[in-house]
C-alpha cells in the first residue's frame, strides 16, 4: 500500500514539474539578500562587488514592445523593470526596444533634509531603428513598473524620486511596497529613479542578513522543538 502511495506521489511530482516554471524550489523562507552594492560606498558599509546594470532587448510588434522583465544581477536584484505587452511604444517600423538601467552615485543630490538610499538608477529606453520611445499611460491592462531594493528593510517606508535628467528637479512618485525591502512605482519615462528618506539619519547600510532578535528567536524555537521531540521519544520508549 505504501509503495503504491510512493509511486502515485512520484507520478504527481513528475507531472507537477512539467508545469513548474524553471527550477522548482519548494518552501521555506526567502533567501536573504546579499549586502547592498553601492556605486559609492558610504562609510561603514560592507565592501562588495560593483553594482550591476539591468539590460533587456525586447521584441516589438506594430510599434509596441512585448512583455519584458529586466533585472540587475544582484541577489536580490537592486533594480527590476517590468512591463506588460504594449507598455513601450515607438514608431510603426520598430523591430525591437532596448531597456537599460545603470547605477550611478547619488552624490550630494536628494530631497531637502533627507538622503537618497543607495544608488540612483538611470533608465534608458531606445529602439531599433532609432526613434522616440514613449511609455503608455498606466491602465489596468497596460503598465510598466520599476522596482528598487532599499539598502535595508529597517528604516520604514521610503519615497520614490524621479527626474527626467540630472538638470531637472526631483519629483515624488507613488511607491508601492512589493517585497520586504522592495518598492515599485509606475515608469513615467526614461530618466533617473531613486529611493529616498526624508529624515537625516542613515540606516546601517549593511543590507542582507537577519537581525539578532530573529536569530535568538529561532534558536529558542528550535530548542523548544527539540525538547518536545525529546519528550515524545522518551514517552514512546516508556510504553
Amino acid at each position, binding site marked *: 500500500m505504501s509503495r503504491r502511495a510512493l509511486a502515485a506521489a512520484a507520478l504527481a511530482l513528475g507531472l507537477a514539474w512539467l*508545469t513548474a516554471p524553471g527550477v*522548482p*524550489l519548494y518552501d*521555506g523562507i526567502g533567501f536573504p539578500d546579499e*549586502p547592498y552594492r553601492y556605486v559609492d560606498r558610504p562609510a561603514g558599509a560592507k565592501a562588495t562587488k560593483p553594482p550591476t546594470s539591468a539590460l533587456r532587448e525586447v521584441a516589438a510588434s506594430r510599434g509596441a514592445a512585448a512583455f519584458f522583465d529586466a533585472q540587475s544581477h544582484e541577489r536580490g536584484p537592486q533594480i527590476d523593470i517590468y512591463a506588460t505587452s504594449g507598455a513601450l511604444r515607438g514608431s510603426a517600423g520598430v523591430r525591437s526596444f532596448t531597456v537599460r538601467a545603470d547605477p550611478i552615485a547619488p552624490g550630494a543630490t536628494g530631497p531637502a533634509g533627507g538622503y537618497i538610499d543607495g544608488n540612483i538608477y538611470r533608465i534608458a529606453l531606445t529602439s531599433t531603428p532609432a526613434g522616440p520611445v514613449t511609455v503608455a499611460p498606466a491602465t489596468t491592462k497596460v503598465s510598466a513598473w520599476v522596482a528598487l531594493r532599499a539598502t535595508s528593510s529597517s528604516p520604514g517606508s521610503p519615497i520614490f524620486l524621479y527626474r527626467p535628467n540630472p538638470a531637472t528637479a526631483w519629483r515624488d512618485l507613488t511607491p508601492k511596497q512589493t517585497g520586504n525591502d522592495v518598492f515599485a512605482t509606475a515608469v513615467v519615462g526614461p530618466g533617473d529613479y531613486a529611493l529616498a528618506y526624508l529624515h537625516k539619519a542613515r540606516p546601517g547600510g549593511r543590507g542582507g542578513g537577519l537581525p539578532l532578535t530573529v536569530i535568538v528567536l529561532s534558536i529558542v524555537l528550535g530548542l523548544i522543538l527539540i525538547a518536545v521531540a525529546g519528550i515524545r521519544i522518551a514517552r514512546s520508549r516508556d510504553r
Partner: protein
Amino acid sequence: MTRTAPGALLIAGFALAVALRVAIGGVAVADSVAAGLTFAAVLALLTFAAGTNCRLGRRSVAWGVGGAAVLLLPALLLAHPAPREGMFLPWALVVTVVATAEEAFLRGALFDALTRRFGETAALVVTALCFAGLHLPLYGWHAMPLDLAVGLWLGALRRTTGTWTAPAIAHGLADLVAWWL
C-alpha cells in the same frame, strides 16, 4: 486537547496559523522571517497539544535523504549554481525550524488525528491539501500543482516510514540545498 484531538480542530488551528503568518508578513510574507517563525511557533504548540510520536532511526533518515534527493532532482538537473552571498547559518536555522514545525504538525499530529478517524489515505490527501494551501498566500496559484505534489510525496514518506521525521528530513534538506541552486 489530548491524543483524541479531532482533525477539524487541528485544521482550524492550522488555518489560524496561516492567517497569522499572512497578517504579520503582509506583502513580504514569503520572505518574512518573523512571520515564518510565528507560524512555526503556533504549529509547534498545536503539535505539542495534540501529541504525536517522534521516531528517529536509520530507516527514517535514509528515507528522508532519499526523499530529498527526489525532490531536488529537477533543480539539480536544471539549476545553474551560483555563489550566494549572505549568512547561511542563520538562514538555515530559520528554514530548518519552520520546515520541522510544518512536518511535525502536518505529517505528525494532523496525520495521526485524521488516520484515526478516516484512515491513512484520507490523512495523506488532506495533509497534502493543507500543505498546498499554506503556500498559496506565499507563492500564488501557479505553485499549487507543485506544492500539492510535494505534499503527497512527503505524506507518502510518512506513510511508508510511520513517522514524521522522514518527511521532515526530506523537506528540510530540499530547502537547505536550494541555497546552492
